[in-house]
């Protein structure tokens, strides 16, 4: 039996330590996904169902042809699925707290925020999975990126950044509700108007004026327009700017709220 000495850390964890602990815990999230692939059903099966259902059911009615509808729908569906995928952070954190895993981490000499950072970074994996599934199925159905790899990459980065900011809403709700099962219930009530009250599925011009007024300021609309510009060609910078501002504003409001709820929840 070899003795391995554990270093006694300083009284405070620095930035480097925080990042290292956060990454280690993000590694745990990835390991859990690998062990429990069915935890990915919501970011794999659901996007496929949405894609197939909307393209073949509504494509003809909305856009005149399913092929043309697929082109405009996919960028919007990417935004919608990123939004839904951000649910995972709140569920995962609430599960960890109610199962006592969180207290195990908190009893250790690691950064206080590391478990939060780990859960949020772990969600990036879910974002990338849902985007990969969507794009793959869409390409099989006939979708083609009209621009170049650089703009495609910008679109992906923009979507992931947006998802990372939305995560903090999910964390906030995850800290407020009692059981992990309640997290999706609360968040879906908020995500449906956010994603359906947008130009993802129908042109904004077809909507009644009161709805139109919301749709044109909705961050999902701006991000969808940016993604369409980046994948299909056309103007995107202005919309990306608005979407980015929205994302920063959401994070600025919900990051402190989530931290406060977190401190209150775990004492």
């Amino acid at each position, binding site marked *: 039996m070899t003795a391995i000495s554990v270093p006694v850390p300083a009284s405070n964890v620095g930035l480097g330590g925080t990042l290292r602990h956060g990454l*280690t815990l993000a590694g*745990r999230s990835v390991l859990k996904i690998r062990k429990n692939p069915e935890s990915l059903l919501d970011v794999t099966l659901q996007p496929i169902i949405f894609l197939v259902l909307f393209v073949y059911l509504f494509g003809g009615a909305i856009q005149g042809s399913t092929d043309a509808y697929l082109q405009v729908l996919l960028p919007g569906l990417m935004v919608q699925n990123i939004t839904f995928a951000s649910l995972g952070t709140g569920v995962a954190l609430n599960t960890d707290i109610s199962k006592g895993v969180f207290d195990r*981490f908190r009893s250790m000499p690691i950064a206080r925020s590391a478990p939060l950072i780990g859960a949020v970074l772990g969600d990036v994996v879910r974002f990338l999975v849902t985007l990969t599934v969507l794009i793959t199925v869409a390409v099989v159905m006939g979708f083609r990126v009209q621009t170049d790899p650089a703009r495609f990459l910008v679109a992906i980065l923009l979507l992931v950044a947006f998802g990372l900011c939305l995560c903090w809403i999910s964390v906030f709700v995850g800290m407020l509700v009692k059981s992990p099962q309640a997290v999706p219930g609360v968040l879906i009530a908020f995500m449906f108007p956010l994603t359906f009250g947008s130009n993802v599925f129908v042109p904004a011009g077809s909507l009644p004026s009161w709805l139109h007024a919301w749709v044109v300021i909705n961050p999902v609309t701006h991000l969808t327009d940016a993604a369409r510009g980046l994948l299909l060609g056309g103007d995107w910078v202005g919309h990306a700017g608005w979407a980015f501002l929205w994302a920063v504003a959401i994070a600025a409001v919900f990051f402190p709220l989530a931290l406060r709820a977190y401190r209150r929840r775990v004492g």
Partner: protein
Amino acid sequence: MSYAIEAEGLVKRFGSTVALDGVSLTVPTGKVLGVLGPNGAGKTTAVRVLATLLRADEGWARVGGYDVVTQANAVRALAGLTGQYASVDEDLSGTENLVLLGKLLGLSKRDAKARAAELLAKFELTDAAGRAVKTYSGGMRRRADLAASLVGRPQVLYLDEPTTGLDPHSRNEVWATVRGLVDEGVTVLLTTQYLEEADQLADLITVIDHGKVIANGTPHELKRRTGGQSLQVRPTVLADTPKVAEILRELTGIDPVVDAENGLLSTPVDNPLLLSSVVRRLDDAGITADELGLRLPSLDEVFLTLTGRTTPAPEGSLA
């Protein structure tokens, strides 16, 4: 004497509930303190404060000389925690859990794996090391929790009801492990509802009820303080029972309690010297005894005297 754990006047309120109402306790380095009390007495709250998971509203506590509030991280580096709320991840295997904790504590991947294997072997979990923890039995699960709290080689260990819900066999295994750790010099604070557990493991006992410390001392002192001794005799020949009863009555002036079924006589005594008189008289009468001695009250009786309540029957003992 140096104290590994010192707490003074801890108060913790949850809304209008007072969970801790001025709890003070000390644990000398290398000793085992049993914190005894009924459900809801405040034991777990006290442990959570000492483990830096909860901040007390009033009072202070030091672990290894470090303040639990202002030097919380140093306390966390020093102390390990095993409780039903500080748990391992059910989805991961035993090895994966321990390696993760090792990495968080700053071990390299190789060292973390070595430490995990070492601990799993120590807790006889090597065969189950690769299985998800959710497939473990209750006893295995508790051993895994215990192993998780030991990855960082803590000098102080909090065990919050470590055997609640375990069958007697698993309970004995946990006890053996705790004794082993104490032999290695670890200071242990153990909460329990089971007097037998405190009696088996603890050097010192603090009894808490309604958030207050109501008694303190060694198990022996507590037994002495809260009840007189009794003298017990079991004659070898059951037919001698009436004669022994007569001798006891003559010496103490009261009728002894006779357990006819077991042939056991007992009588309360205040003078320990009485024992030699009994021996002499039995000898004179030519009566031999299988059992003869002074007995302190059991901790159960002590607990009843202190709290006015009987202790709960151990859960899982029928399972």
